[in-house]
């Protein structure tokens, strides 16, 4: 990526840890569509020997040999047995039966996580700069599990099985599949085993936002990553015949439009199809769009395919209008023809014009790359949202990271749109999704692990979460959700936006052991068989022991008062008529370093006077490294209508560190 290192302050970290080379001992495993090993992002110049701990392999197959690996790309394997058992033998004329990436997605995610520094990177001149992964000195091991027909759970599980045996340190999975309970979810089960081996597992939250309850990868031993924007944009203005101008975005590069206004037509009026407005394949009437700019509505088919459909029908250009599902979120694409994507409000105004004017005309003006866009980050509309549909008492997503208009390495097998009719080939591509935010966090976890090799996966996640920010640095206003234009909530951004330099020195962490996770399963009232399905062992929940999700040492708080009043869940509660009281406990571990003591004081904020949060004790004094101290939080609230949510934040600070936790209270 060319902007996120600056946006995240990573260049600053080079001064903090100039001599640290322990990051090169960290192995980041990416389960995805494979790898394009010729990408400059896998150049191993200057890298030392492969870590002795590495037990993996570089497998041979279609257009791929062991010579394609090096000291940067240390492993490449593929898992297709389950896929082929269901869909038949792989057609090697269409996809490589090898670790080679014919899609681009896997090369993008792996280079985002841990690609080497590549100068002069850009997509057609857009987003130009020096590209690098978040952990640019870490090693990369790719496990190809996704094929043209999808990613099958038997292959994913085999890849996780292999990655554990290979001794990787970080697992990055930018994929998902529904919301099965943990003991029925292969990714959750495999991730549990990885976690036990000290492997940090990060997964994408999903792109089903902005609706609630849309998250994937919800297990508490997984770090679940939502998406936000960068401070970078690719403006392409739509200029109408009535003199109005609207700002949009585009990554188009090619022949310019004529220096005059062109006839403009709404796709819905250039089609005999009831959904002609969507510019789906075969729906446009060429005679009605030839030489014109066509207004298409977003939805159903891929955005870049709409451009190809307009081009195929003879259109000169395209304006792509967001609908309510996307609001004002502007995702840029490398369209095959001059095109601009505009937000819903602009789209509505443009549609009004093209439908009401007798001779509508328009043109598109491309402005290239702009940085310093404010506010940024904003939560992406597509980013999946909480509450957690499986365990509402665990807040998900855990945090957000850059996932909109991200430039990273790309395959040489397809063009930047991924369309068969796209003949262009690029070294870098700009795409969007929580698939892109997940490897940011995977790489940043490698970055933290490089500085703290002995930290557990939970400690690394805690560091990333408790140092995440929820307000803009300039002005202090709350992060914005682009789907509403209003302040986002912990259901949208979790603990906040990742802040990796602060995560290197979080002061305190909420640590968790395997036994804590087993006790969490006990708190869910899992049967011994269900626990064995997740954890591969006999584990007896104590018959007389009380297990509480509320006391599970997670770095965030999600309090369901209705559940507590009825008597389920965790913590203690008392109905008391119209007032509910719930207590949760947490334990903080001092990782602040140094031999001197440190005293942390708590501060609390809530969005509603109906909610009272108290913390006991309100001061914690640590005298030595790795010392643990516990505290109890009491949430009390008057009765509220069902489905009401209130939010808050608990912060511990010693003046140097701020250890923040989001709070959600739901009725």
């Amino acid at each position: 990526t060319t902007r996120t290192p600056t946006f995240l302050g990573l260049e600053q970290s080079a001064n903090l840890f100039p001599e640290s080379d322990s990051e090169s001992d960290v192995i980041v495993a990416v389960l995805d569509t494979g790898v394009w090993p010729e990408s400059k992002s896998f150049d191993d110049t200057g890298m030392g020997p492969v870590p002795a701990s590495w037990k993996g392999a570089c497998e041979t197959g279609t257009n791929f040999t062991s010579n394609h690996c090096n000291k940067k790309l240390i492993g490449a394997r593929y898992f297709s047995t389950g896929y082929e058992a269901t869909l038949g033998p792989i057609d090697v004329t269409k996809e490589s039966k090898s670790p080679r990436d014919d899609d681009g997605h896997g090369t993008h995610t792996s280079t985002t996580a841990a690609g080497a520094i590549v100068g002069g990177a850009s997509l057609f001149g857009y987003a130009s700069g020096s590209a690098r992964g978040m952990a640019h000195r870490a090693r990369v091991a790719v496990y190809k599990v996704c094929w043209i027909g999808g990613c099958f759970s038997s292959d994913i599980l085999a890849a996780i099985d292999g990655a554990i045996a290979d001794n990787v340190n970080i697992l990055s999975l930018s994929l998902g599949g529904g919301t099965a309970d943990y003991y029925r979810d292969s990714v959750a089960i495999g991730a549990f085993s990885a976690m036990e081996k000290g492997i940090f597992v990060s997964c994408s939250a999903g792109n089903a936002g902005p609706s609630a309850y849309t998250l994937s990868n919800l297990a508490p031993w997984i770090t679940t990553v939502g998406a936000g924007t960068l401070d970078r944009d690719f403006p392409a203005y739509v200029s109408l015949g009535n003199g109005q101008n609207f700002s949009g975005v585009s990554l188009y590069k090619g022949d310019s439009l004529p220096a005059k206004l062109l006839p403009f037509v709404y796709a819905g009026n250039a089609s005999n199809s009831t959904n002609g407005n969507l510019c789906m394949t075969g729906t446009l009437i060429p005679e009605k769009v030839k030489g014109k700019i066509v207004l298409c509505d977003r939805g159903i088919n891929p955005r870049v395919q709409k451009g190809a459909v307009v081009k195929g029908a003879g259109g000169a250009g395209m304006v792509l209008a967001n609908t309510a599902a996307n609001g004002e979120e502007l995702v840029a694409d490398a369209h095959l023809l001059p095109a601009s994507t505009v937000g819903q409000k602009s789209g509505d105004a443009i549609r009004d014009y093209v439908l009401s004017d007798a001779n509508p005309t328009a043109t598109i003006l491309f402005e290239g790359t702009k940085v310093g866009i404010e506010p940024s980050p904003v939560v992406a509309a597509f980013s999946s949202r909480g509450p957690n549909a499986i365990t509402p008492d665990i807040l998900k997503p855990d945090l957000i990271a850059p996932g909109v208009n991200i430039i990273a390495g790309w395959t040489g097998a397809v063009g930047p749109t991924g369309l068969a009719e796209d003949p262009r080939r690029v070294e870098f591509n700009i795409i969007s999704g929580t698939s892109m935010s997940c490897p940011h966090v995977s790489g940043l976890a490698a970055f933290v692990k490089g500085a703290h090799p002995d930290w557990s996966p939970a400690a690394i996640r805690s560091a990333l979460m408790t140092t995440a920010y929820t307000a803009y640095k300039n002005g202090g206003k709350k992060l914005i959700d682009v789907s509403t234009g209003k302040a986002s909530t912990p259901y949208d951004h979790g603990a906040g936006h990742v802040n990796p330099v602060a995560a290197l020195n979080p002061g305190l962490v909420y640590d968790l052991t395997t036994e804590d996770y087993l006790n969490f399963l006990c708190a869910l009232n899992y049967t011994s068989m269900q626990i064995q399905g997740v954890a591969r062992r006999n584990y007896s929940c104590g018959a007389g022991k009380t297990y509480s999700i509320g006391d599970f040492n997670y770095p965030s708080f999600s309090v369901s008062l209705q559940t507590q009043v009825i008597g389920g869940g965790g913590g203690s509660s008392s109905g008391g008529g119209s007032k509910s009281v719930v207590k949760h406990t947490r334990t903080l571990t001092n990782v602040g370093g140094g031999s001197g003591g440190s005293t942390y004081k708590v501060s609390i904020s809530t969005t509603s006077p109906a909610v009272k949060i108290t913390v006991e004790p309100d001061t914690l004094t640590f005298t030595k490294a790795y010392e643990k101290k516990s505290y109890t939080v009491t949430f009390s609230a008057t009765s509220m209508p069902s489905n009401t949510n209130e939010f808050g934040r608990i912060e511990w600070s010693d003046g140097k560190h701020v250890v923040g936790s989001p709070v959600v209270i739901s009725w």
Partner: protein
Amino acid sequence: VQQKKNTYIIHVAKSQMPASFDDHTRWYDSSLKSVSESAEMLYTYNNAIHGFATRLTAQEAKSLQDQPGILYVLPEVKYELH
């Protein structure tokens, strides 16, 4: 329809392996062969889970679920890139 095979992931309680087996893969194979003569192992898992993946009919999957030491017989799920 009853003969149509689908992929299943079989979770096994390895601790319940009978003493007559000295290798868990032989036990897995024996369990599988007890419900299907034709089924083949797609994968044997050792680290992520204890178990294996195979192709079975719905009836075979049901029978396997009832074998000793079998925890779960879960159908294959297709995941999608985000």
